[in-house]
């Protein structure tokens, strides 16, 4: 989510006089023709569906458009048209998973979130204690608490380390042995960026079980340590990029006023780059908040709220999604299920686990998107205008 899109102007196309091109709307005709033939063929074969009609229609469109252009304009322009269609097709294909995923998450997740079981939005305020079988109840309050706590602790570890590493690389690693160290650090940060998340989880696990008598120990702080391993390189990279954008002029202006280096860094460099730094750090948080694999290994799963990072397992949204998905369809022997803890009676629904997974996914995506939007807003509204 970090590279801004650069746009270039369209170069004007000069073409020889003798190669007349067809008007753009011939593509509409070949497109409609392709679609109609596709529908006809699929209807005869008996495999007609919206997806198959669009896919086959597109392939036929490529064929018809290319063939027609070949007849009228010659092979060079025909190839050009074919490639243009393919490139547009590639983009359309990539939108397909994004839209269908968002649609699934919103239609199935939001429905469950606002469903009145027992009250609207109870999904966000209740936990899973006593929810068994196909009980159409329960929520993710415990998982939201877990996700926020673990991410908070991961941030507490990663932001100072990442920020000071970036300061080291930009402000200190200029000469002598520090320069050599800086090169090493840059390399290692690259290596860290590539660490698979499951390996980060194994690290969090391995560190703690090496020192703990109980090999089955799982707790929030282990997850936070594992996530830090993934978060630190992102924080370093984003911060380093922002600090390098601060003009040397400003540092010199401060030095010339007799300001010590550390105060120059705090009050001029960090102050000038604060919007970019906040954006970068928010994006780093958004990245780790959805991590699942490290948390599967380090924090386990529980059914009720655990506020203590240093004792006992914790639920988080990503691992909750995974668990509910793996539970699969519930087995409804009767129409109702009774909560063994408080004796409440719920309806039984076969799809309850999957519904909760979607609703938790919706919750997680909302959190991630809010973080992304906050990051964009900070960088848009709070950047100082550096006239260069």
């Amino acid at each position, binding site marked *: 989510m970090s590279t801004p899109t650069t746009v270039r102007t369209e170069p004007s196309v000069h073409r020889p006089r003798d190669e007349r091109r067809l008007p753009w709307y011939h593509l509409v005709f070949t497109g409609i023709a392709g679609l109609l033939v596709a529908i006809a063929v699929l209807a005869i074969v008996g495999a007609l569906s919206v997806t198959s009609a669009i896919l086959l229609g597109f392939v036929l469109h490529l064929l018809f458009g290319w063939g027609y252009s070949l007849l009228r304009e010659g092979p060079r322009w025909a190839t050009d048209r074919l490639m243009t269609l393919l490139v547009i097709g590639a983009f359309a294909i990539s939108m397909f998973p994004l839209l269908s995923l968002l649609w699934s998450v919103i239609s199935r997740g939001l429905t469950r979130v606002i469903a009145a079981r027992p009250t609207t939005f109870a999904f966000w305020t209740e936990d899973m204690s006593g929810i068994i079988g196909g009980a159409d109840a329960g929520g993710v309050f415990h998982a939201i608490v877990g996700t926020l706590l673990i991410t908070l602790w991961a941030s507490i570890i990663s932001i100072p380390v990442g920020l000071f590493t970036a300061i080291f690389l930009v402000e200190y690693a200029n000469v002598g042995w520090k320069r050599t160290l800086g090169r090493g650090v840059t390399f290692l940060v690259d290596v860290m960026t590539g660490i698979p998340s499951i390996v980060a989880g194994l690290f969090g696990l391995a560190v703690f079980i090496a020192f703990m008598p109980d090999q089955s120990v799982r707790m929030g702080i282990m997850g936070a340590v594992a996530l830090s391993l993934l978060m630190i390189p992102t924080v370093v990279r984003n911060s380093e990029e922002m600090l390098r954008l601060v003009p040397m*002029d400003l540092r010199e*202006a*401060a*030095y010339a006023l*007799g300001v*010590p280096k550390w105060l120059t860094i705090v009050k001029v460099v960090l102050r*000038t780059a604060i919007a970019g730094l906040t954006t970068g750090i928010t994006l780093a948080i958004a990245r780790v908040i959805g991590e699942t694999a490290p948390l599967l290994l380090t924090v386990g799963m529980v059914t009720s709220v655990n506020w203590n990072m240093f004792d006992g397992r914790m639920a988080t949204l990503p691992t909750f999604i995974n668990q509910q998905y793996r539970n699969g369809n519930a087995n409804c022997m009767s129409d109702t299920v009774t909560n063994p803890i408080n004796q409440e009676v719920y309806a039984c629904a076969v799809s309850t686990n999957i519904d909760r997974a979607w609703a938790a996914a919706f919750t997680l995506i909302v959190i991630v998107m809010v973080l992304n939007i906050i990051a964009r807003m900070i960088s848009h509204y709070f950047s100082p*205008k550096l006239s260069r």
Partner: protein
Amino acid sequence: MAAPQPINVEDLNIYYGDFLAVEGVDVQIRPRSVTALIGPSGCGKSTFLRTLNRMHEVIPGAYAKGKVEINGEDIYDAKVDPVNVRRRVGMVFQKANPFPTMSIRDNVLAGVKLNNRRISKSAADELVERALKGANLWNEVKDRLDKPGMGLSGGQQQRLCIARTIAVKPEVVLMDEPCSALDPISTLAIEDLIHELKEEYTIVIVTHNMQQASRVSDRTGFFNIAGTGKPGHLIEIDDTDTIFTNPSNKQTEDYISGRFG
């Protein structure tokens, strides 16, 4: 304050890493006067200027060897803190560089605020007014002190930087081509200001513009370089009138008369 003493530079060699950029400078800079440094590009005049407040060593790998005495204290003494040197020897840069995150008022107070010193509201008001008046900028900005410093014109920004520099009450003000990015009217305003400032400060100014050197300075030093990769030298320094009418060195004469450079 005791009678101001000259700046004594003795056998100063300036390096960028292994590269000797300026060699063997011996010069005495008179207090409460304007000294201009002229010479062709790359001759080391700006480099020399930056050694007078130890800004040179901010560049990675750069250092200087020799003696620079200000008020009888060698600023290259091992015990001297460069931060303290810069509080006494201010600097104005080629490009105006007000702090983009600060208002006009805060820019003037930057030397105080960035150093975490406490200052009362009334003392701060007085300091801002005095420094802005000292930089001939007060009348233009007194109604918008809380507006960003980046909103000013180029010439105003440069005078804001001068105000910021004199607000920390230095003894010496170094100026590195302060007018090279300005239009003629702003340049004139800065030159007038330099005339006023020399009543109180020792001023050393680097300039590309020989007319400017002859207009603003009392003494002029000429730097030259034998060729690319060779170190720069201070060829001669004398009263400005002498340098421009009757230089003792042939190189200076060639440069002044436009035969090269």
